[in-house]
């Protein structure tokens, strides 16, 4: 297909072959294309008889693309098959969804490249054995991570398979149930509050038109949607893997769950996590979130969520679970603003902070202090046992707001970013401080 003049002829003579090949390329690029769609594409070409590449583009896009997020991948495949990048797609996909972008930058390859790069000049794993390295790390990363946004992709493969599946099996027993809400739709119920005219009258024919048995209906009660936002920044690293497992369990629990991860940007994982194999789901999650264990921007992430998803209805009446330690690299004022917005939309907000387990915990992290007034519950969830509390907080119909005195956030929260005793020791094996690349300075004997 090097000669343009021949391209046209080939298409004319061998339409099915071209459409099938194009469909296959799209499939490889992550745009699901079925034989049915390929056939429809051929049919559409017959109808439109594209006179220009532009017309061909819109015809193909109208038939083959089923979601706005696929447009980028579609554009690049179209350009590679039918020539130059014309027409420039007129809109920017508004969210970084877990969709592979293009064939040549598939997540796996991307992550391998970047892992290599990170391995060569990795900067967020501080010098091991240094007692103060937590502080150093917390200060050192933002400059690099926020300004350049060093995107690092981490492979979960690094985690021993046995540990992962062991933890998953344990977590599988957890049942995440959310409070219920009443739908408009009704279902049959003998003691329902509403009359079911249809059934009553139908039954009355049997008794010569006298409605003897009254059929009733009751408003259907369904569990509320659960939206989970998990912090996967550097400071959350020891927990993020376990929490991601938790997300997988909860997201797999039904169609009414949504999962996101954030560090410097928000990534939607719902689709990636909703698969039968949790190991694969976590791998996909790692591939989809290139900012794995970089700096945190809770405010930006919350704003992104509110703007793109929450306002449109995802958060409305939903139960929002935020899993984060509340270390905010950006402006805590933004966290407060966005939390307020979120609290107006959501039914309830549960904040899971692994550091809350430490005795004498006070929310001194800038983001946590700013967010606390808008949270309905604050739980620690630092261990598998503690996750039960999380589930309880999620399922509770009513709960009392967290009774924790909000200290004045300190001027330099990073200077006081001391790991708290006991906050991570109860984690299942493999998530503790001893692992090579995880945060140094987390051990109970290493703190100041």
């Amino acid at each position, binding site marked *: 297909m090097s000669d343009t003049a021949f391209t046209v002829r080939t298409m004319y003579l061998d339409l099915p072959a071209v459409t099938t090949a194009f469909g296959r390329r799209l499939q490889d690029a992550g745009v699901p294309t079925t034989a049915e769609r390929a056939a429809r594409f051929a049919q559409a070409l017959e109808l*439109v008889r594209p006179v220009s590449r532009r017309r061909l583009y819109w015809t193909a896009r109208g038939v083959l693309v089923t979601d706005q997020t696929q447009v980028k991948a579609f554009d690049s495949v179209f350009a590679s098959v039918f020539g130059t990048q014309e027409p420039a797609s007129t809109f920017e996909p508004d969210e970084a969804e877990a969709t592979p972008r293009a064939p040549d930058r598939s997540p796996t390859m991307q992550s391998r490249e970047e892992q290599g790069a990170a391995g060569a000049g990795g900067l967020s794993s501080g010098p091991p054995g240094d007692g103060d390295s937590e502080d150093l790390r917390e200060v050192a990363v933002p400059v690099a991570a926020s300004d350049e946004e060093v995107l690092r992709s981490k492979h979960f493969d690094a985690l021993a398979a046995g540990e992962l599946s062991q933890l998953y099996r344990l977590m599988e027993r957890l049942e995440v149930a959310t409070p219920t809400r009443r739908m408009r739709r009704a279902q049959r119920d003998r003691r329902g509050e509403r009359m079911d005219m249809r059934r009553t009258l139908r039954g009355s024919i049997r008794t010569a038109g006298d409605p003897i048995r009254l059929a009733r209906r009751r408003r259907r009660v369904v569990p509320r949607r659960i939206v989970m936002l998990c912090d996967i920044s550097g400071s959350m690293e020891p927990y993020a893997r376990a929490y991601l497992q938790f997300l997988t369990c909860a997201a797999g629990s039904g169609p009414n769950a949504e999962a996101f991860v954030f560090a410097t940007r928000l990534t939607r994982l719902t689709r990636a996590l909703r698969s039968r194999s949790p190991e694969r789901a976590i791998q996909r999650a790692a591939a989809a979130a290139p900012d794995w264990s970089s700096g945190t921007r809770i405010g930006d992430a919350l704003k992104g969520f509110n703007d793109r998803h929450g*306002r449109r209805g995802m958060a409305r009446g939903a139960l929002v679970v935020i899993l984060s330690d509340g270390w905010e690299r950006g402006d805590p004022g933004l966290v407060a603003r966005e939390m307020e917005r979120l609290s107006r939309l959501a039914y309830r907000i549960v904040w899971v902070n692994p550091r809350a387990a430490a005795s004498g915990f006070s929310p001194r992290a800038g983001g946590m202090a700013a967010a606390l007034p808008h949270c309905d519950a604050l739980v620690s969830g630092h261990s598998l046992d503690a996750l039960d509390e999380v589930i309880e907080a999620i399922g509770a119909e009513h709960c009392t707001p967290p009774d924790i005195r909000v200290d004045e956030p300190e001027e330099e929260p990073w200077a006081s970013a001391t790991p708290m005793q006991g906050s991570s020791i109860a984690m299942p094996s493999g998530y503790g401080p001893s692992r090579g690349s995880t945060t140094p300075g987390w051990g109970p004997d290493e703190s100041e």
Partner: protein
Amino acid sequence: MSPREVTGEAAGEIRHLVPDVETLAQRLASVDYLVDEGLATSMYLSLRLPQPLLLEGEAGVGKTEAGKSLAAVLDTPLIRLQCYDGIDAAEALYEWNYPRQLLSIRLADGSGTKLSEEDLFAPDYLIRRPLLRALEHPGPRPAVLLIDEIDRADDDFEAFLLELLADAAVTIPEIGTIRATHPPAIVLTSNRTRDLHDAVKRRCLYHWIDYPTPQREVEIVRRRVRGASEALAVQVADAVGRIRASDVQKPPGVAEAIDWVAALALLGVEELDEAAVDRTLGSVLKYSEDQELVRAAGLGQLVTR
């Protein structure tokens, strides 16, 4: 041959009305709906293949209007189904006319005639809701069925729509399958509050409507607000573009631009200035936070000279 295929008279009518993409675009323009090539192609394919068209886009970019305009071009009734949480078959498709059934039972009882269940559940006793009305449209041109904001309905309603979308048919247990003689042109809209099921998407053409270019927006606004000066329309399109580019929670759509120009025209404003923006900001920005944000940045920034 797909069951949705239109044959005979109806196909001829449509082919005559919209022989190609350009003609459709022109006809849509003649009813004051301006489309770009992408949307025109999708709408054309949706009519001719024929296949339901799923439109997504930000609020106020003209998704619903696309359905209305298509009905105007085809000169057929627009049958609109507004979806909402908990909508079910009784509200979307059909309901039995219970009072009438009861009356018939009493009547049969009184006159001693025999009444079987089949008599009672006959088409005479059917109350036709939008979906059924669209299927039973007598033609010759197909009706336009607009299923608006399908993402508001719960997901089992989507499953309920599958038969309609794929085969232009619905099944009523008491009567059987009702197949459209003139399959309606179906337009679905969604605001993306949730992902639609793949099964629905598989049966539809998909188009994402983006904000129009400033030039097109000026044209749209001028067509919708008669008597608005070009200068005002250009200024408003420009200001709306700036607001969209800024950090507002709810970027104004084309609908808001039209409302704004209409408001300004009503107030007799010939040219946009800071005072005029200040008085009418409520017709573009519907969140107080957004208004504060724009005010803080300076209303003068929205006014171009």
